[in-house]
């Protein structure tokens, strides 16, 4: 309630409130949208006393591309190349979700092999996203060696993606009914050897970053989300697990090939910056294990079940909500079809919206300017995901 009135005040920035504000000696600090410490086109307006923040106001909307509206204007298949653009670091989640939603609506079966391939893609994307995250977080703390390493290693995953899907970032590989192409020759072998390399590499990261004294000094006790707060702010994903709540959609409501896979849900207890990073670092190894299992269990067979000609494809009337676990948290799609060639409404539930606006505003209060962008990165906020 208090927050509301504060926001109202800031909205009515007329002459009246000026005198009140002048009495507190804060200054207004704009971090973003043009700022190296911001994950994307996103701004935070801060009221700071010295370098201490007394009020933070997230200011999204600079990258608003009206995806949800655009999707209503496009045919069902045409949306497949569109959805992956919602979030750069981990686009496959969107593809998988969109395909799953359409499959649920139309009743197209996905072949078993396609399910496994999709899971492999999702887990590879997860690894890539984590490498991205490690690099980004290290960079906000000023360690530029790790991003160079991790982005280099991420490129090896992207190479595999390129081999599999023909593209490095926006794979546009999954589509309703399965995947677009079968695995290329020797793909699983290459993937397996890459996983072994990554296992070694993560140890090297430990040395320079995760175990480093300075890193611990910078991160421990910064931006704490405790259990109650995590639930109150509907935090999901690794951020939630860092607060000690073992919730993972892959485990709780399994989808694709996850029911067949054994893995642990990683949790940390402190809920601070450090645990948020460490949850991801430990999940990285867990994901490598998952991928190894997937390679072992990969069945053979078809990879795609045909759907009608996409130009004239009408999807049955109905609505559906599907959700998956992304590296950022719970990702969900709510798709409404009115039986025509174009979806009536698609709503994307991105985790960055909750993490990047309400939670961030809360967390930044009382922090130092030096900790803004580390906290933002530690929450793994993807501004494009906020501005759909």
């Amino acid at each position, binding site marked *: 309630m208090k927050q509301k009135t504060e926001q109202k005040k800031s909205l009515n920035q007329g002459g009246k409130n000026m005198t009140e504000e002048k009495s507190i000696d804060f200054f207004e600090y704009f971090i973003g949208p043009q700022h190296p410490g911001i994950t994307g086109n996103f701004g935070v307006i801060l009221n700071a006393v010295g370098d201490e923040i007394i009020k933070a106001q997230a200011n999204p909307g600079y990258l608003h591309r009206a995806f949800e509206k655009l999707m209503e204007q496009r045919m069902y*298949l045409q949306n*497949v190349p569109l959805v992956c653009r919602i979030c750069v670091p981990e686009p496959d989640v969107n593809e998988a979700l969109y395909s799953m939603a359409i499959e649920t609506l139309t009743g197209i079966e996905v072949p078993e092999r396609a399910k496994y391939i999709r899971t492999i893609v999702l887990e590879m994307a997860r690894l890539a996203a984590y490498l991205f995250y490690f690099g980004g977080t290290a960079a906000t703390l000023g360690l530029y060696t790790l991003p160079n390493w991790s982005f280099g290693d991420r490129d090896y995953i992207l190479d595999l993606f390129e081999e599999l899907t*023909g593209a490095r970032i926006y794979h*546009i590989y999954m589509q309703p009914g399965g995947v*677009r192409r079968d695995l290329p020759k020797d793909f699983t072998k290459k993937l397996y050897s890459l996983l072994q390399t990554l296992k070694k590499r993560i140890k090297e990261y430990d040395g320079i970053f995760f175990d480093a*004294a300075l890193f611990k000094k910078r991160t421990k006790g910064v931006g704490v989300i405790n259990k109650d707060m995590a639930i109150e702010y509907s935090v999901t994903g690794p951020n939630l697990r860092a607060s000690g709540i073992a919730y993972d959609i892959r485990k709780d409501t399994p989808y694709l090939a996850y029911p067949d896979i054994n893995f642990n849900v990683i949790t940390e207890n402190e809920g601070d910056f450090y645990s948020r990073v460490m949850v991801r670092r430990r999940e990285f190894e867990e994901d490598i294990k998952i991928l190894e299992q997937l390679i072992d269990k990969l069945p053979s067979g078809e990879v795609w079940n045909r759907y*009608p*000609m996409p*130009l004239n494809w009408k999807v049955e009337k109905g609505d559906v909500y599907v959700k998956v676990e992304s590296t950022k948290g719970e990702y969900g799609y709510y798709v409404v079809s009115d039986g025509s060639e174009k979806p009536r409404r698609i709503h994307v539930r991105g985790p960055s919206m909750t993490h990047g606006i309400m939670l961030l505003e809360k967390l930044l209060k009382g922090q130092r300017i030096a900790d803004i962008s580390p906290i933002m990165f530690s929450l793994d906020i993807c501004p494009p995901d906020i501005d759909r």
Partner: protein
Amino acid sequence: MAWNDILKPLSGWKFLFKKPHTIRYPKEDKIPSERYRGIHTNMIDKCIGCGSCEKICMNQAITMKEMDVEVKEGTTNLRPVVDHGRCCYCGLCVDICPTGSLWLSRDYRHLSEDIDTFIIDPNVKEKEREGWQKAPEFSLIPPERGKMEEIPPEKRVKSFMEVFVGYTEPIAKEEAQRCLGCGLCVDACATHMHIPDYLKAIREGNNEEAVRIMFKNNPLSEICGTVCTHFCENVCPVGIIGEPVAIQWEKEFATRTIEDYKKIIDTTIKEKKERVAVVGAGPAGLSFAFYLRLKGYKIDVFEKYEKPGGMMLLGIPSYRLPRKVIEKEIKFITSTGVKIHTGTQIGKKKTFKELLKKYSAVFVATGNTKPYTMGIPGEEGKDTLQAISFLYDVNTGKKIDLKGKKVLVVGGGNVAMDAIRTSRRLGADVYLSYRRREVDMPADELERKEAKEEGIEFMIQTLPIEVIREKGKIKAVKYVPTDMDFSEKGKRPKPVPRMNDVRTLEVDIIIEAIGQGPDLTYLEQEFGESLKIEKGKPVVDKNLMCSIKGLFFGGDMANKQNDIVSAVADGRRAAEGVHNYLQNK
């Protein structure tokens, strides 16, 4: 905070003397993967310009532009041009391309300050294929058409019941979904029916709208839905990767759902004074009458026979085209106010000159009535039948008994097919002789297939050279096999008879179905030199008016296609021509 944690970061120094793992562009180059989705490349010769890529593109990056290419049948001179500034390299255009002419190459670098250079013409003559290509099993177009119920051949051969079952609604809708909407068929169709439009109406379940669209170009839509040469399907790009869209059957389905066209088609007419006469109530005459009538002219149709319908009625057996269909169509046409005077042969009771005096214009569409003959020894005789007269006889109800007889039909057109299947239904053992390969046959594939199912023996690449007669009756036919000569490019291959390999076949009756031409003798008698005739057909201008003012020709007698749909098209064209002529008179 252990000492170890403080010193551990120094472990990063081990990379100080290791080889970096980056690629030193431009000294080194990373080779993109085999499936890399790079820059568009399009085989300009293979591309048919259907524009599917343009339609599937979500970014409107592809535009079809007119290019200087050879326009073959079923292609356009439109070729894709890609704006790489908008392209998202999803490769959907490749996956949908029916011909597979489009692919994404492995090159991917393009650097320029000028945004105009990002609009790339991807058309090449020849290029090595690499990168993201069409994989047939992942083609976005379903290759098979909707299945139609079939009557088993054993059953259908016994009677003249209609062999055509037609689509049920769900299958029709599903089938209509396969249409790419490219409109190549519109160009191919003689009447230029708006096929994608009515297919769209069908898949939306709006059959009335579909029929309305059809009748804009074709008043004999149901007949065409039942029997048609369907050039549209021949050019359909979907046919390249599988079976073409069943346009004809879709049309048949839509029209059949409508009981009475009068109810759905707006036929309000503003009457005009001028009167126009039509000679011949065949497809050309009827469509002419219909469209001109809609413009308000008063129409009188003169028909030689007792029933209107022309070749549709007389030439096509009822198992293919049920009579009630023809009646339904004609009833609709006459309901607009067209008067049909049956049993009135012009040239005998009335002359053309009389008509020209009485009427503002005269449209003549008397069709091809004069059959061609082979001109081989022993050909003439009572049991050498002409296909059209044979069919005419059958259709008018003349009893012809062929039970147990051996019949040889010569020719490969639809008339030949009708002849063999009619003969078969009359109980004969039928042979078909055709001098070219089976693929060269002008007859429909479906017809051929059904004919074979009904137990007719196809003697492909044979040429009868002599009919052996005993007592005036045919005993056997001598024939030789032929070889194909492909020397002339761009034309159908020429059969070369192998004269030293003469074979004989015992037959009772020969039916010649090698084509027919118009009978213009009565016209020549009346007009003489003032009517220009070339190659047995009257010379007409683009309005289908001949050298005599007010006299129009159309239908089989004026065009080369010799089929219903062309005749209908002629009728419509002539209606426009007559209207123009009368308005500008």
